[in-house]
């Protein structure tokens, strides 16, 4: 398949691993964070970490939108889903994220009309098919998914679909990266930048990382050779004493991003003053809400939500995992009380979550033997 087979070539992979080995300085430890969950998934699916020298450590970042949803937002969603006459729609993974009193699936089992959709457009279609019911879409995701929600809201407004509304939980990638760089817990040497978020926002927003923090960033694709090459490029920058934003994923990511997507997002959304991230706490201007022009489509305003902050379960260490402070298998409940089938923490819910990636690709068994 085009853009796939040539990026999974084993011989080229071994050559890149050799280049990485030749680039690193013996005795120095390198910590490289892959920002997004898609990279985490690729790293464990293809065993990329096994090809790296022992002194190159990959640290998993907060780029899985399911994983960073705090319990209070799930509770808000469930409060809406259980309102009489409501059809509540969300992406599949979101249905299994636990709130303080269960998941959307539990709410569905108790009688709420909760439906999985693949796209916000599906939710809008459901609204048109059910004009006597209120249809709410629980929107989550980074800048990759936000344009899709924005276009759907524009369409709903243009077509006058009055029974459609949206709970906006869209988040933005730059503020949590800045928060991580400010964190004393973590000393990172470089970042594998998010591929498809960059398709929308471009490379420019990551410029503050080399400029303000002196760390290299390489925007990367998701095939194994993409990730390996990005690691090699980061290590090369360090070896050369350079520090800049490079784009390994030029076949998809334009430097300036998708201007039409940014325009539609700017019309439909505005920044929230602050938003709670699971494990990272409240981060200023890190999430989106509907702009005044679209306030009539905002489910939070139309119906009201409890808006209560709920503390994470004590046993769960998703916060440390999301900050890259601990590895998933170092969490007390990993693979025992917390599994993909019965997740306590969000990182075990989504396949892009670091815990689920470890668990699903056999890291559980291997790491347990080491322990």
């Amino acid at each position, binding site marked *: 398949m085009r853009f796939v087979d040539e990026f999974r070539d084993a011989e080229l992979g071994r050559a890149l691993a050799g280049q990485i080995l030749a680039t690193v300085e013996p005795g120095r430890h390198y910590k490289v964070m892959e920002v997004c969950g898609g990279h985490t998934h690729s790293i464990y699916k293809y065993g990329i970490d096994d090809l790296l020298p022992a002194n190159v450590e990959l640290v998993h970042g907060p780029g899985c939108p399911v994983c960073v949803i705090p319990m209070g937002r799930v509770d808000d969603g469930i409060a809406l889903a259980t309102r009489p006459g409501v059809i509540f729609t969300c992406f599949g993974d979101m249905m299994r994220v636990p709130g303080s009193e269960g998941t959307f699936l539990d709410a569905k089992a108790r009688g709420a009309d909760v439906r999985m959709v693949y796209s916000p457009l599906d939710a809008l279609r459901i609204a048109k098919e059910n004009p006597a019911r209120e249809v709410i879409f629980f929107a989550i995701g980074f800048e990759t998914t936000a344009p899709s929600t924005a276009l759907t809201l524009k369409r709903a407004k243009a077509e006058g679909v009055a029974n459609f509304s949206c709970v906006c939980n869209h988040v933005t990638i730059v503020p949590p990266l800045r928060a991580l760089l400010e964190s004393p817990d973590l000393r990172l040497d470089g970042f594998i930048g998010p591929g498809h978020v960059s398709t929308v926002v471009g490379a420019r927003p990551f410029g503050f990382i080399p400029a303000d923090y002196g760390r290299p960033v390489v925007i990367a694709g998701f095939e194994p050779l993409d990730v390996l090459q990005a690691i090699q490029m980061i290590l090369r920058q360090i070896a050369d004493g350079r520090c800049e934003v490079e784009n390994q994923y*030029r076949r998809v990511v334009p430097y300036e991003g998708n201007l039409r997507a940014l325009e539609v997002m700017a019309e439909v959304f505005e920044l929230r003053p602050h938003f709670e991230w699971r494990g990272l706490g409240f981060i200023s201007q890190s999430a989106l809400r509907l702009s005044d022009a679209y306030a009539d489509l905002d489910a939070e305003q139309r119906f009201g939500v409890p808006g209560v902050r709920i503390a994470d379960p004590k046993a769960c260490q998703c916060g440390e995992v999301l900050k890259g402070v601990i590895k998933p298998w170092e969490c007390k409940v990993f693979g025992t009380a917390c599994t993909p089938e019965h997740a306590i923490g969000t990182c075990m819910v989504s396949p*892009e979550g670091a815990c689920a990636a470890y668990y699903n690709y056999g890291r559980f068994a291997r790491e347990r033997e080491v322990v």
Partner: protein
Amino acid sequence: MSDAPGPCFDLAGHCITCGDEGVEMRVLGVDAARGLALCEDAQGKRATVEIALVDAVAGASVLVHAGTAIATLGERAA
């Protein structure tokens, strides 16, 4: 469409919620008036895709995320 719970993978094993992974699809036909296109992925699965953010023409490859094309592929060197 199945309403089954569980991890929400597409046919290539990606998480569709975000995961920052899009799906490459080929444009089969464009409905310019509605801003939609019929697209097909590598496994032959078809879907109606929002194309307001790209210049989609029949035969082009697009990167689709949550039902919306966010990039046209193949314009730049790999």
